[in-house]
């Protein structure tokens, strides 16, 4: 039950995030979606390491207090969170610039202006 809930929740977060990316045109919402999606993925990764009855993988005085949960996914998640943060920061910086440049954050309008500037007019 806990597992279903955790897995379902994680996947639900991924789907919600993806919805904001795929179906919404506002670039800021897309970036929020990215953040939500990443949390979902991280949750999924962390849940993979669960062991029934496991403790946090910290030794007390050099000995384990009992069965431990898998420490590797925890380390991975930690890394993934920081990576996500870096990407998010860069995205926000770009958003500031795009907003300044085009006066809009409508993905479609941005894409149209972008192509016009690239000289991809229909031949």
């Amino acid at each position, binding site marked *: 039950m806990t597992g279903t809930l955790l897995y379902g929740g994680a996947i639900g977060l*991924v789907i919600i*995030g*993806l919805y904001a*990316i795929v179906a919404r045109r506002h*670039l800021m919402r*897309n*970036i929020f979606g*990215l953040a939500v*999606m*990443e949390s979902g*993925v991280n949750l*999924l*990764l962390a849940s*993979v390491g669960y062991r029934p009855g496991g403790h946090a993988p910290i030794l007390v005085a050099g000995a384990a207090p009992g069965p431990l949960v*898998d420490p*590797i*996914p925890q380390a*991975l998640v930690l*890394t*993934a969170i920081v*990576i996500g943060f*870096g*990407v998010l920061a*860069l*995205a926000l910086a*770009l*958003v500031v*610039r*795009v907003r300044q*440049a*085009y006066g809009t954050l409508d*993905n479609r309008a*941005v*894409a149209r*202006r*972008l*192509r016009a*500037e*690239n*000289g*991809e*007019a*229909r*031949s």
Partner: protein
Amino acid sequence: MSQSLPAIIYPVAIPLMGAFLLPIGARRMAELAGLFGRIVVLLSFSTSLALAVSIWTAGPAVSAMGGFAAPLGIVFYADRLAMLFLLALNVAVFLFWPRGQGAKGGPCTLMLALLAGGSGLILSGDLFNIFVFYEITAVASYGLAASGRTHAGFAAALRFLILGSVGSSLMLIGIALIYARTGTLNLADLSRIAPHALTGPVGLAAFILLLAGLGVKAELVPLNTWVPEVYGAAPARVSALLAGVVSKLAMVVALRFVVQVFPGDGAHTVLLVAGILGVLAGELAAWRAGSLMETFSYSSIAQLGMVALAFSISGAAGIAAGIALALHHAVVKPAFFMLAARWRGPVGGLAGAVKDSPLAVWLFVILSLSIIGIPPFPGFWAKFLFLKAAFAAPSAGVWIAVFVMLAGTVVEAAYLFRAVLVFFADGERGGSTPRFAFAQLAPALGLGAVLLAAMVFIAPLGASISGMADEASNAAAMAARVLDRGE
């Protein structure tokens, strides 16, 4: 059986240190930053070269980071294939080192980060570590895509970033799936566990998820919608680097996954379909493209589709063909981008370019002939290897792939020579097309020289590529080198 070579970390560590140091000085001495960066790249290149020589003579090398042996810690695995692309990356970064623009050494820092990330990507033998290095490469590419600091550059970089991050998240889900099934992240370990733990739909699904991430960089259809936008908006040097080498790194990583973790038919079929779609989409869209820059963006999609097609043929022959195609494209396409950067705008406006810049036009002709695959040029031998591998393992999908590729070649010739004929047309306004400064043309000329040299030394080149492919196709030997080291 395999040598332990801890120094294999240098190609990652040297540019990394350079990247960390560069911004400190760059604020004050902006001119020196570029020079410093180049020195770092040269240092990294010479180290890589020394390592490559050692690996060429003594066989593949393994290094366990922190002394933690294979399945537990992170392992670098360097064979000839990895060293080849490592050297290519170093050379490309040196050739396409940013010039002129950039805020206080920003692009230089990103370039070094890209070099470090790309080197790690190609050397790493650990699934999650590959993800980390992939992300370094990706973030550096996003930044470099915006390094022209134009409006279009920012917008293209942002759209690229969103797409790439979605892909990366899916890739991470794939990694989670694999870890949940096998409990290990080491590729060598996986190659032993996968045959019984990663069977059925889960294994294939994991591969698809991984490819959804890698495919964004590797320009696989339909994950490559960023390509025309970014290559059109970014500085030409960045486009050249991304299309020329970075996309191939992602492709080689995908190859490692296929060989070591997903040797089944399913993964090959996925690559095959992606490749067929890539060739179709790239060649057809390029046929209708409005400018040279756009043409080459689409054409690079098609070329990477061909690499995917080659890698989808299991066995050493397919890998050899893929390496040859990738290597050839890595030489030719950056040169094309450098030319297209000067010849922006509609192709029709370039009439009579042969009078203004004969050297560039003739280079364009030679590159075109090679990429189409006209016999004496190396491009032909790459396609030749592909066809040889394809017909050696015929199946319905392969027949379609061969047909699509050959038909695509015709379309490719049509759009390239449409441009060539425009260059040679007698423009009524002589001297109306842009001329090249030597510095602008130099990297392209260098690559052209490499191409011609490859033409002369095609026989030894072919032999060493096939040796490389033999080495890279033998998953069992790779696993043994990494895991059974008797330490």
